[in-house]
């Protein structure tokens, strides 16, 4: 890849829906000059082996991400709250379905 492509072509994140009814999943990223090209590149790069039936492309710069440095503040507080998991509770025998 030449330098101009790296410098000028924005990065897109690509999401593929494998089959109808399933969620789009992140599969990777690529460079493209515009949205149309991002879809075409995604088709050529990520659906060569029938991996999907739908493509989403999102400018990487438009994604808001949590900062790894904030991980403690963000995610630590959930660790000791095991009562938030359904497995914490004993289910009475009388309850058939839950």
């Amino acid at each position: 890849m030449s330098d101009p492509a790296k410098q000028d072509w924005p990065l897109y994140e690509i999401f593929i829906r494998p089959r109808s009814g399933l969620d789009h999943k992140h599969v990777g990223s690529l460079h493209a000059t515009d949205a149309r090209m991002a879809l075409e590149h995604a088709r050529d790069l990520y659906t060569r082996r029938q991996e999907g039936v739908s493509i989403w492309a999102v400018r990487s710069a438009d994604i808001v991400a949590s900062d790894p440095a904030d991980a403690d503040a963000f995610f630590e507080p959930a660790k000791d709250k095991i009562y938030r998991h359904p497995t914490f509770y004993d289910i009475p025998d009388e309850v058939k379905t839950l």
Partner: protein
Amino acid sequence: MTPHGRYVLRLADTNLVLAQRLGEWAGHAPALEEDLGLANVSLDLLGQARLLLAHAGQLEGSGRGEDELAFLREESDFYNLTLVEQPNGDFGDTVVRQFLFDAWQLGAYEALRDSRDATLAAIAAKGRGEATYHLRYSGGWLVRLGDGTAESHARVAQSVARLWPYTGELFADDDVDRAAAEAGIGVLPSTLEPAFSARVDETLARATLARPAQTPFNWYGKQGRHSEHLGYLLAEMQSLHRAHPGAAW
């Protein structure tokens, strides 16, 4: 060879030669993504070429298979359109060559779906979907380059001017075409011109590019008379099979 067989071989050779040309981009395209994009188009065309070559071999009845036809014929026995043997040039040249070819091939496949040759009709039906995508890809790039920067516009305008003369052959009818069309097997090339023009004019307008005037042409690749470029392409494409006959993966 019958006009039927020759007609199919023209389609096969046109695909094969363009697939080889596009393959030359592998590792050299302006971006990794374009490397794969061009390779995908190349492999689509190669897949169609294999089906068409095998069919041509059967029509010929001489026992020649796709490998014999692809690798053991001389330049003057190839019947591809002269447009597709033109060198890759810069990326804009490749885009223009591809766009002009795609616009022609899509129309040809649309018509050939009704061929009385059931095999050819099936190949055309399969190829139509691929050609539709190829045209979207090449047309998208033509607009991007034509309606891009001052330099990209000027360079791609030169590509259009350089390659346009070869479009004359796409719509020139000869005896083989007429015989195949009368038998309900082929489509008369001249009848493909209106749909081609509509597609090309629409995209050229979006690309802010002018359509060059039609000029007389002196290349009849489909009759085996080629530009100076095909021999080199064949030498490279055929060298491995000729050095190691029957070599397989």
